[in-house]
Every structure is written in structure tokens, then in C-alpha cells.
């Protein structure tokens, strides 16, 4: 009887303890944010550029901006398995499209990544092998960026679900989480907006 009473009290008190600990963590985090925010808002354009480029040079972006006709994949950016090619419009070949395997969401059963309109960036937007400055020149040059204005570039970088996939890349075929870019999504978006708002100047 006694042991039952003890286990009961443990059962009742354990969740309360967990809640207190969780609350403490959450509370600490909440306290941390207001302190960080002004710092981010005060980012210089050069700092914003640097934060943005930590993401844009990451393999989650570069793998789909290859300098060639084959997509790259994986943490080591190898050529996409099975001889997959970009095709006439970056969506694959007529009867073997990206969407034959990649749907509008990650598939953690098969390990196949997915996001809306999964496809390769056109060859004119190849970033593979470019320096951060060269990438910035490429993406702001209407001759190479598909005639986009800087506002449209900002929208692609901060709101396109295909780009945002980089921050939720799902599990690979071995069930391991894919590597995310080294910057939090919110900080990255803030950095892009800050860089564009300050004139999209590309540091020498």
C-alpha cells in the first residue's frame, strides 16, 4: 500500500517538476530575446551581408544552383544519383520530372526532400564555385536573375517556400536530419531585409 502511495506522489509531482523546469527554460529564452533583438536591428549592412551569405553559400542553397546540367545533393554536394539532369526548364525531363520523386513537402519515410515547385535554378543563376560577392552580383543582375527587381529578389530570398525549405530540410535516406544553414531562419530574413533596405551594397 505504502509503495503505491509513494509511486502515486511521484506520478503526480513529476509532471509538475517537468513543467517548472520547462517554464524556467522558456522564461529564460523569452528574457533572452528582447536583449538580442536591438543588436540584430543594429546590424551594419556589412554584417547583414555576411549573415545572409552564410546561408546563400550553404549547400542547401548551392545544391540547387549548380554550375552545370546536373543537380547536386547531400552534405558533400555530389551529383544527384541516377543520372538526373536539369532538363529544358530546370524541372527535369518530360517523362522524368523532379516531381516524379520530389513532392511539395519532405517525405521522411523515403528520405526524399520536398517543397512547393521543387526545381533547379536556371543556369544563369549558377552559384556553385562563386564567392559571396560574385553571388550577390549574380542575384542582383537582371540579366542573370530572370529580370527580377531587388524587391523581387528579397521576396525570393525571404518568402519563397522552396528557399525556406533550407531551414526545414527534413530527414535523409538514413533517417538523419539534413544539415541546416548555420544561421537561424529569423536572423537570416532580418539580415536580407536589412541588406536590401540599406541599398543592397555589395562589399568589395
Amino acid at each position, binding site marked *: 500500500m505504502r509503495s503505491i502511495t509513494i509511486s502515486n506522489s511521484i506520478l503526480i509531482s513529476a509532471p509538475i517538476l517537468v513543467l517548472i523546469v520547462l517554464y524556467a527554460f522558456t522564461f529564460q529564452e523569452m528574457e533572452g530575446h528582447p536583449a538580442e533583438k536591438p543588436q540584430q536591428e543594429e546590424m551594419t549592412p556589412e554584417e547583414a551581408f555576411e549573415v545572409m551569405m552564410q546561408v546563400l553559400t550553404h549547400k542547401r542553397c548551392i545544391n540547387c544552383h549548380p554550375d552545370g546540367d546536373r543537380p547536386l545533393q547531400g552534405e558533400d554536394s555530389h551529383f544527384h544519383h*541516377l543520372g538526373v539532369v536539369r532538363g529544358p526548364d530546370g524541372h527535369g525531363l518530360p*517523362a522524368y520530372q523532379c*516531381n516524379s*520523386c520530389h513532392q511539395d513537402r519532405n*517525405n521522411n*519515410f*523515403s528520405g*526524399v526532400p520536398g517543397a512547393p515547385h521543387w526545381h533547379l535554378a536556371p543556369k544563369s543563376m549558377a552559384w556553385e564555385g562563386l564567392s559571396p560577392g560574385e553571388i550577390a552580383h549574380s542575384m542582383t543582375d537582371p540579366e542573370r536573375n530572370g529580370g527580377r527587381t531587388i524587391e523581387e529578389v528579397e521576396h525570393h530570398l525571404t518568402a519563397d517556400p522552396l528557399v525556406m525549405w533550407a531551414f526545414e530540410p527534413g530527414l535523409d535516406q538514413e533517417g538523419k536530419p539534413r544539415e541546416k544553414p548555420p544561421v537561424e531562419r529569423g536572423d537570416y530574413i532580418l539580415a536580407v531585409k536589412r541588406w536590401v533596405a540599406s541599398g543592397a551594397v555589395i562589399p568589395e
Partner: protein
Amino acid sequence: MKMKLEINGSQYEVDTDRNMPLLLVIRDMLDLKGTKYGCGRAACGSCTLLVDGEAVRSCSYPVSLAEGRQITTIEGLSENGQRHPVQQAWIEEIVPQCGYCQPGFMMATVALLNKIPDPTDEDIDQNILNVCRCGTYFRMRKAIHRAAELNKSNI
């Protein structure tokens, strides 16, 4: 979650997780065993079927995406007892060896011929990336050209 599916022109209702792979619904819940499970990783193509006429690897396709779309499996290729040209060509060229990969290849071929009615060898190599462990590629290539011919003579 309850979902309605249209497969080979027939209506089905299934009650399952919305992320369940379409392949498993078709094989294990609806007992249409023609579509095969090979790798489960969208790598081998043995699970290929058509969704609105496009080739899809059904092991990597959540069933909920199939709602409101027309699914065609190998069981739905023949019409009114008439063999589909791809089936006819496969028989004429005696393509299969063990046969396991063949439904996937045949469905990929139907998708190819819908898009490229008279494919070159290069079109075949680039658009059909399925895997056959028995190595029947050579006979398949002949059968694909034969199916293209049969398609033309059917018009």
C-alpha cells in the same frame, strides 16, 4: 483520415494517415499488387504509376496528394480486354526475366510515350531511370520502340 481515391477509373475510400505512402495504400489496403515495392526510397522505380498521366514513384508520394487526381496502375493499362500497346510490345519482345521491376518500367514507358511519342535511344536513357536487377534493359529498349510503332498504327 478518410480520403477518396480514383484508381483505374474506380472509386475507393480509404481511412489512413494522410502521409501514408500511396504505394502501401494501393498494395496493402486496396490489394492491387501489380505495383511493386523495391527500395522505398524513390531510387529504383519499381513502384512507378501514373498520377494524372505523369510518372510518379508511389513509395515517396503521400496518399493525401492523390485525392482528386486520376491514378493509373499496371492493372488499369488494358481497356475492354484489349492490351495496351506497351503490354503488347513487352510480350512480343519477351522482355521480363524475373519480372519484379517490369510494371514500374512499363508505367514509366507509358508516361514517356505520352510526352515523346517516338523516343530516341537517348530519350529512353534519360527519361527512364528505373533499375532492373536482371538487366533486361536491352529488350526493354526494343519493346519501347515497338510500343511507339504500335501506338502510331493505332491512330
